[in-house]
């Protein structure tokens, strides 16, 4: 049995150890304005492998272009930007690990967001726990903002639901005799695609467009033949696909194989990729397919032409091959620059406070968010016409009027 003195010493030792561990525990967010001068380190998780790999790489390019340009101008508040990337393999589990490592192991100054609403929500919660600002350009599903995270800012300029509503605006602007009478909604179980399609379904049903099919398929579905067979059997005038890339291609291929050609085909994601979409469905099969987006290389947005020139100069290729995701992530960097220019500081708390007020010009348009980081703007409608993604609505910025109905598959 221990003596009283020994027990007392043990308690003091235990309390001392606990205090020491606590002091070494949760790192406080770095206040860059007080930190020694050195590079401004930014941790970013990108989907270089997995389901989002096609667009994940585009996200990385946008960040890299921004960093190279800002460093050429002297950096942020005299500090050279140093980006650190990690592959999240399109996995919500891995993305959490990546941001945990960035913050607690690498002790980066800032973090930027990943690609997709699925990964953004998981990652933003990690950043919030440590008091880091989470500025992101590719996560705008409703679940992201429903989390009510105070640190999140979406460099939108529109939420997933509001962005897709431009399709509803267009369809309901048509004379009644030109509108579709029936609609089908095959959707991927995804926090971006499915809510966007569901919101359109609710709006169209209220306007009298009858729903003849509405189902959600799991992310691991490899063949959509059965889904499209059911859609085709209902003969809808319009198909609103809540899709991402690979399943979007599979939907189009299945429609062609089953010789099912709706008069109107809108897809939430897939057609906005100017390279992979025609490559995977066939360039001749893109005609008449609609999607919504925030950016295209020809969009009349201040700073856009300079962005396009800089992108082509750095990465080569044709402007028409630039994925809009690159512009969205570039806009994230522009917001950080705006904070530094406005406040003279670049710490996380300043970023959070500053970007939740006011509006900021970026290459994807004016960005203004509410208290939960949700952008307040809208998107434009694009259609594949003659092998080119073309802005067709709203009329104020349309390159040409929409071509309807969709032609039969060649």
């Amino acid at each position: 049995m221990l003596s009283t003195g020994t027990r007392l010493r043990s308690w003091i030792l235990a309390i001392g150890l606990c205090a020491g561990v606590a002091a070494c525990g949760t790192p406080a967010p770095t206040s860059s304005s007080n930190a020694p001068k050195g590079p401004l380190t930014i941790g970013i998780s990108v989907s270089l492998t997995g389901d989002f790999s096609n667009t994940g790489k585009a996200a990385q390019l946008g960040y890299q272009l921004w960093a190279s340009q800002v460093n050429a101008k002297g950096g942020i508040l005299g500090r050279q930007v140093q980006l650190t990337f990690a592959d999240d393999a399109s996995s919500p589990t891995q993305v959490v690990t990546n941001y945990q490592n960035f913050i607690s192991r690498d002790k980066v100054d800032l973090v930027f967001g990943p690609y997709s609403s699925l990964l953004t929500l998981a990652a933003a919660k990690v950043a919030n726990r440590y008091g880091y600002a989470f500025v992101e350009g590719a996560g705008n599903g409703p679940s992201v903002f429903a989390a009510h995270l105070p640190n999140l800012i979406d460099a939108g300029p529109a939420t997933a639901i509001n962005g897709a509503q431009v399709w509803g605006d267009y369809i309901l602007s048509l004379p009644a005799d030109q509108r579709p009478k029936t609609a089908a909604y095959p959707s991927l179980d995804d926090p971006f695609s499915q809510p966007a399609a569901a919101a359109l379904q609710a709006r169209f049903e209220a306007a009298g467009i009858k729903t003849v099919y509405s189902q959600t398929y799991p992310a691991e579905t490899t063949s959509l033949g059965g889904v499209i067979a059911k859609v085709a059997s209902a003969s809808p005038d319009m198909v609103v696909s809540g899709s991402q890339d690979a399943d979007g291609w599979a939907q189009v291929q299945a429609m062609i194989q089953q010789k099912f050609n709706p008069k109107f085909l809108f897809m939430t994601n897939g057609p906005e990729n100017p390279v992979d979409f025609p490559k995977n469905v066939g360039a001749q099969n893109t005609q008449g397919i609609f999607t919504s987006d925030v950016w295209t290389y020809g969009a009349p947005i201040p700073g856009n032409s300079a962005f396009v020139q800089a992108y082509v100069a750095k990465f080569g290729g044709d402007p028409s091959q630039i994925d809009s995701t690159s512009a969205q992530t570039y806009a994230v960097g522009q917001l950080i620059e705006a904070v530094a220019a406005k406040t003279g500081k670049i710490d996380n708390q300043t970023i959070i406070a500053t970007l939740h007020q006011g509006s900021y010009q970026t290459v994807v348009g004016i960005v203004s968010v509410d208290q939960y980081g949700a952008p307040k703007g809208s998107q434009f409608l694009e259609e594949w016409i003659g092998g080119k993604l073309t802005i067709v609505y709203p009329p104020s910025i349309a390159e040409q009027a929409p071509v309807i109905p969709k032609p039969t598959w060649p």
Partner: protein
Amino acid sequence: MHLLIQAIILGILTGGLYALMTSGLTLTFGTMRIINMAQGVFVVCGAYIAFTLFNYLHIDPFLSILVSTPLLFAIGFTLQTFLLKPIRHDAHRLSLLMTWAMAIGLEGILSFIFGTDFRGILTSYQNSSWTIAGYEIPVVRALAFLLSVAILVGMFLLLTRTKFGRSVRAVSQRESAAKLLGVNTDRTAALAFGLGAATAGAAGAMFGLVSSFDPASHYDLIGRLLAICVIGGLGSNAGAIAGAVILALSESLVQAEFSPAWSSVPFYVLLIIVLIARPRGLFGVRTRGAI
């Protein structure tokens, strides 16, 4: 009724391809009593070979099988000789881990060579379909089904009408007895492993036609192939075919008639029932333990 029959057609066509993928897994288990976790990545290798030959040499994917099959045979034979053979007798249980390591390694090599973007093989007939009695028969799926059947028949003849086939069946039934009868069991196992990889290579070329893929696509595949094997019976070719058709049909029917969210459920419920009620599978045979 039209939708039901259309779904059945799609299910059967898909089932044929899955049967070919699984036949190699069955063959490997039958001769070596190991579960080859790399079977899925062998299929993906076949898809990348077809993708490369099509994009750079404009060789049709069905013709590329003439290249992918011997190439995957060589890869399988080599891997078995250097990685599996040393542990085959002494550390048999490690073979599951070893084949999984092979799968991860091959995935890494594919990622390094081809990158990680999703790929597809877009031939001129990719999206074509024949209309027969009002039903749409996708051309690629129909050709893949027919070719799969032809290769499976070829394998059946190989296993039943050739000396090599007799060796394989002898090793499957009782390795020790086969050895006593003069069969070089190690060589037979290596050739069988190579043959299993070769069938995966052939299936991979067709897989690349019906689905987009990336190096990580083998994770989805291997789960399905193992489930098919278990339901059909490990070591049974007839079981592999039956299990594949059951999987593909159930998914297609549920997807079309009910909800795609539930399409995998019936098959995996059947898997649980089979494991409980008939663990050797629908067509599997009872195996005797070692004396």
